[in-house]
């Protein structure tokens, strides 16, 4: 059976620089695919191509076998939820959804029911009569997503759907997306949030420089890491001085954030050879003895973030790609 979404050899250049380069992607109904990659990797461009907003320089995009760029029927099968809160702030939640229902081509008599169903799905019935501009960021995000779903499209594109929302709103959005998947909707979600991707995705695809550098079922990709050593991260109480920094590097750690250092490889002993891997408590004691202001040692099984680093950061770096202007 042909996939719901099929991108084949997709290429697009912006001002002479490739944004997407020979990208292949397929998505089946009831499947959630998370797109991961640094800024400028081409995630949003890919979504705009699938939504029919851009013309590919090479390759094809097909939704249910049709070209969304030229066929309104194909676009009707795609619900695009952009990163921005793309709603009318002076209209209420229900009015916004009603307008999007009309623009999605729903017949007049079916719109009221569709709006009610969407308010229930997104769990926003309580704010149905409120003006969008007066809602909190979390509610606005939920309405933003609901507006993309009102036409009950079989394929939904979500560009960073939980950006800037609190934990409760994020949980509500995830619950909504899981309900959609159960109903058979295919979801393509671009995110920088590894935890979100781990919770939601059936498959992940890592993009860099306009190419998918690794792609597959999440469980299978994570299983490949299970045999390896656990990830270790140090949390420092203050910024290390030069001597402490040298000690950290000798122990096999590299800076990840201002006060967080991540283990990147085996440490070196005084003879500059590989050092014996110490357990957490021993490592903490040794580093403190060397004057490193360590406050915490975190140990965890490798997850999606480790996969991301492995897929994107350990390979040859490509030139940063440009996103087409909006």
């Amino acid at each position, binding site marked *: 059976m042909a996939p719901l979404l099929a991108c084949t050899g997709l290429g697009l250049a912006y001002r002479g620089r490739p944004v997407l380069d020979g990208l292949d992607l397929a998505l089946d109904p009831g499947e959630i695919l998370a797109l991961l990659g640094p800024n400028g990797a081409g995630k949003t461009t890919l979504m*705009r191509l699938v939504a029919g*907003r851009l013309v590919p320089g090479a390759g094809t995009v097909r939704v249910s076998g049709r070209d969304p760029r030229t066929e*309104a029927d194909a676009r009707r099968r795609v619900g*695009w939820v952009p990163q921005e*809160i793309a709603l009318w702030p002076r*209209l209420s939640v229900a009015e916004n959804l009603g307008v999007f229902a*009309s623009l999605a081509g729903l017949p007049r008599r079916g719109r009221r029911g569709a709006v009610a169903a969407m308010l229930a799905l997104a769990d926003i019935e309580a704010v149905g009569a409120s003006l969008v501009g007066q809602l909190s960021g979390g509610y606005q995000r939920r309405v933003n997503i609901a507006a993309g779903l009102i036409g009950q499209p079989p394929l939904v594109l979500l560009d960073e759907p939980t950006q800037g929302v609190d934990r409760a709103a994020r949980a509500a959005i995830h619950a909504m997306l899981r309900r959609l998947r159960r109903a058979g909707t295919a979801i393509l979600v671009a995110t920088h949030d590894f935890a979100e991707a781990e919770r939601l995705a059936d498959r992940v695809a890592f993009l860099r420089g306009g190419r998918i550098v690794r792609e597959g079922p999440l469980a299978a990709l994570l299983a490949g890491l299970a045999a390896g050593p656990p990830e270790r991260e140090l949390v420092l109480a203050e910024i290390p001085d030069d001597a402490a920094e040298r000690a950290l590097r000798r122990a096999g750690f590299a800076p990840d954030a201002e006060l967080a250092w991540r283990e990147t490889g085996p440490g070196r002993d005084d003879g500059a050879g590989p050092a014996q891997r110490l357990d957490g408590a021993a490592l903490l004691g040794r580093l403190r003895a060397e004057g490193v202001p360590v406050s915490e040692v975190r140990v965890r099984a490798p997850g999606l973030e480790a996969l991301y680093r492995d897929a994107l950061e350990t390979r040859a770096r490509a030139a940063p790609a440009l996103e087409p202007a909006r």
Partner: protein
Amino acid sequence: MIGAAFRVMALTLLRDRAALVMAFVLPTVIFAIFAAIFSGAVGDRIRIHLGLADLAGTPATARLVSALAADTSLRVTRLPADLAAATEAVRAGEVDVALVLRGDLAAAPSGASAPDHPVVLVENPAKALATPIALGQLQRVLNEALPDVVLSRIVADVERTGKIGPDERAFLDEAFAEQRAKKEPFSFSALVERQSTAAAVGNARVSYYAGAIAAVFLLFAAMQGALSLVEERESGLADRLSAGPGGLGVIVVGKFLFLTLQGVVQAGLIFGAAALLHGVTIGPHWPAFLLTCGLVSAMAAGLALAACAAAATRQQAHLFATFGVLLLSAVGGSMVPRFLMPPWLQQAGWFTPNAWAIEAFQGALGEGSAVPAWGVLAALALAGLGAALALVARRPA
């Protein structure tokens, strides 16, 4: 889908109280203010401020002063009997122009030397228009109120040529004085009969500036509404709507229909005020009037949407909304009547939508034909809408 875009515009306007007031209260307020300005500028109510100084103090000059003071088309202020004081009053702007009556207006007796120019006009170059108006009014008042004096000067001229003698001149002067005493009209003072081109005076007089004000207001209001196109683009809404089955085209058409309807209501309010305050009669002309309102509104909506679709940023759109509309309105006669402009500017006015809107309203409410103006307005509306649709379709995502 077009109805959805229309609904968004309507709800957005209804929710913005300030915008609502500006859209539907401002037209009548703007009209009332501009109508007062325009009614003077088109010559209907030009009442220059005339200073009068009677140095001669003769019966004839006293009659002239009384006649000028009684004339409703002038505002007269009596000045001290001194040329220097009158000059200072004009320079200081206390009056627009001054007439100093320094000699008797009646012709000098036979043999006596007549002083040159019994009347001095003191003018201010900054108010040059006041001079011909004052001269014209002086001539008219002389003819109407002092015809015997005018005739006596003519007879004196004839006497100087030797065709008549002093006795005959005295006889004629006496005859003129008797005719004046009997209040019998002098034929030359009734030389001109005024006829108007308009059957309904209010329509011809006011439809010019009501149309002029409607054109500029509708352009401003349409630009304000069309700015939502730029806002939707900046917020990402346009991008999202473009990805819908109907694309952004249905949104533009929905906005066009809303702005056209809004314009019809606004033009109706402006002409409603014109009917109430200035006696404009719309009733017998309502089909043509309604069509004109629709076409002018559609023209404003089309051009505003095209400008906003072409503008890359909100600043560009604002620039056009202010300077562009102001420029079109100034050249097109929405600020100053075009007949007062230099000929080349009057010709340039035909390249502005305002001039055609004014033509259409004048034609619809008067006796002239509005058909050519309707054609131009319809073409402008369609061209604007077409350009807006093409621009939103071509603009990169």
